[in-house]
């Protein structure tokens, strides 16, 4: 793959240019443009229905854009969706591991689908289980796990095949604060290894953990910068207030 660098020499993982998704008269994502750099934690914020999931699904190759262009890990979002899929991990809003399989079986299944060798599978699943402290639970059905553990497991499975980018759609929804901290530790570990993190969230404390954040309002990106500079720009003390100021202008109904 050719290296995509920006002006400052940072490698570009995701580049979206006027990416649009339209359903009939409804424009779910309206000409969104941004770049995400390698190893960056990129926060994607917005009220419910602002178009976050739509945008993310286009970037993952799950949904074809109506217009605009985007490259993910250097691959074209229209023509090279299968190449994109080899290089990304994805954790959807809905918990999507198999509840009727055990922890170990889920790990091996997804690892196997991504083409990990038998040796790699053994090694990685052992390491993953040890990292999550699930040694005693490895042979329990996923259905029996508490939500927080499920989410941590889902994340670990999403990065098992060492993708270059991982997309997380509200990964910590409904999870308690302690587990959320642990979840973000996992995210930081992955980012330290050079994985680009693209994450949507509704928690403003989590927004502060991101390197940069974009805030979507009514299908368009209304703001994009580091949390620090955004607060300066809006002259407020917290991300909460930044979000309120922008989201107040939204015209779309919640939902």
């Amino acid at each position, binding site marked *: 793959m050719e290296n995509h660098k920006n002006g400052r020499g940072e490698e570009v993982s995701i580049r979206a240019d006027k990416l649009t998704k339209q359903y009939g008269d409804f424009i779910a994502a309206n000409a969104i443009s941004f770049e995400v750099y390698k190893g960056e934690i990129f926060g994607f914020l917005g009220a419910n229905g602002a178009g976050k999931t739509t945008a993310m699904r286009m970037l993952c190759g*799950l949904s074809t854009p109506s217009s605009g262009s985007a490259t993910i890990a250097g691959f074209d979002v229209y023509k090279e969706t299968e190449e994109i899929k080899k290089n990304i991990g994805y954790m959807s809003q809905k918990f999507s*591991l*198999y509840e009727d399989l055990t922890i170990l079986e889920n790990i091996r*299944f997804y690892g196997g689908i*991504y083409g990990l060798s038998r040796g790699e599978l053994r090694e990685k699943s052992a390491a993953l289980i040890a990292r999550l402290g699930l040694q005693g639970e490895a042979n329990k059905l996923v259905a029996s796990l508490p939500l927080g553990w499920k989410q941590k497991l889902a994340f670990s499975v999403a990065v098992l095949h060492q993708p270059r980018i991982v997309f997380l759609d509200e990964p910590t929804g409904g999870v308690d604060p302690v587990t959320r901290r642990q979840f973000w530790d996992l995210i930081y570990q992955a980012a330290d290894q050079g994985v680009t993190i693209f994450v949507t969230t509704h928690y403003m404390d989590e927004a502060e953990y991101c390197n940069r954040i974009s805030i979507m309002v009514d299908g368009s990106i209304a703001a994009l910068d580091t949390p620090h500079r955004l607060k300066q720009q809006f002259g407020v003390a917290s991300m909460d207030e930044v979000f309120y100021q922008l989201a107040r202008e939204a015209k779309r109904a919640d939902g």
Partner: protein
Amino acid sequence: MRTVLFLLQKEFRQIFRNKSILAIIMVMPVVQLIIMPLAADYEVKNINLAVVDHDHSSYSRQLISKITASGYFRLADYSATFKEAMKFIESDHADVVLEIPHGFEKKLIREDEQQLFIAVNAINGTKANLGGAYLGQIIRAYNQDIRLELVQPGRINPIPVIEITSSNWFNPLMNYKFFMVPGILAILVTMVGGFLTSLNIVREKEIGTIEQINVTPIRKHHFILGKLIPFWILGNVVFTVGLLVSWLVYGIVPVGNPGVLYSFIAVYLLAIMGFGLLVSTFCETQQQAMFIMFFFMMVFILMGGLFTPIESMPDWARAIAAFNPVSYLINVMRLVILKGSGFREILPHLGIIAGFAVVLNSWAILNYKKTT
């Protein structure tokens, strides 16, 4: 190919972990095969007969006792007038009314001729049809008996009689179970194959796991193979269980080569599962899939030649039946199990079903979209 192995491992684990479904898959065919052929009897018995006898002669009594002794009829009422008997039909207590006129005996002997009146309740078509026919047959037989009594056979029989003797090939005793059981087994295999595949994939859609699969670099045909193979094996198991039940319970042993039967089933299952897959690619919820499958299953079963012969259907219906995979299976099952047909005789059927399998599965793969 390694991907397919991982998919198969996962699919089999899920199947064997879902004990209730497994039990339904195994128990349902056995129970249905034991109960349905016994209940779905082609012979009509217990037809309720109301008799209006205006004659009260020994001849009329003879006729009535001959009818009730046949075993097909149950004397529901012995009414004085036709009007009264009609009330029994209205209240559904009688299916057939037989009216014997005044002077039945006298006129029969003197004038050599007599008329009887039969009224049939046609609400239940089969019962009415057969009931009327049975009654007619009994009366004809009775008529012949009287003739013999009355007319001393001369050198030349005054009434020419054509006697018909028939013999039933491949099912000498006309045991209806011999053609019902293979037919019901055909339907069971179809239901298990079709429903399992369609509901399984739609379930993954509902839970959301399919999205996680769609975001992996998995190849579409690998995914479909991973779904087809386990249910194909299950279908074969159900079929084998069904054959065992027909042998143990009904003593039906295929006259033909079971290998011919299995090679047809192998292709047939691919076709019907391809249909299930195709339905699943159009549906978002198990409810939708269930209703669509149900609609087609009804058509497949009722127009499959199990209950009514396809040959007697109108042209448009026969055209539909030509696209009904079940009709080919029922046909082949009867050909091989009862008639002992070989590979050559079922080759046309096999070719058509193979065509279905190719078309339906390719359509399903094309219609399954990882990116929407």
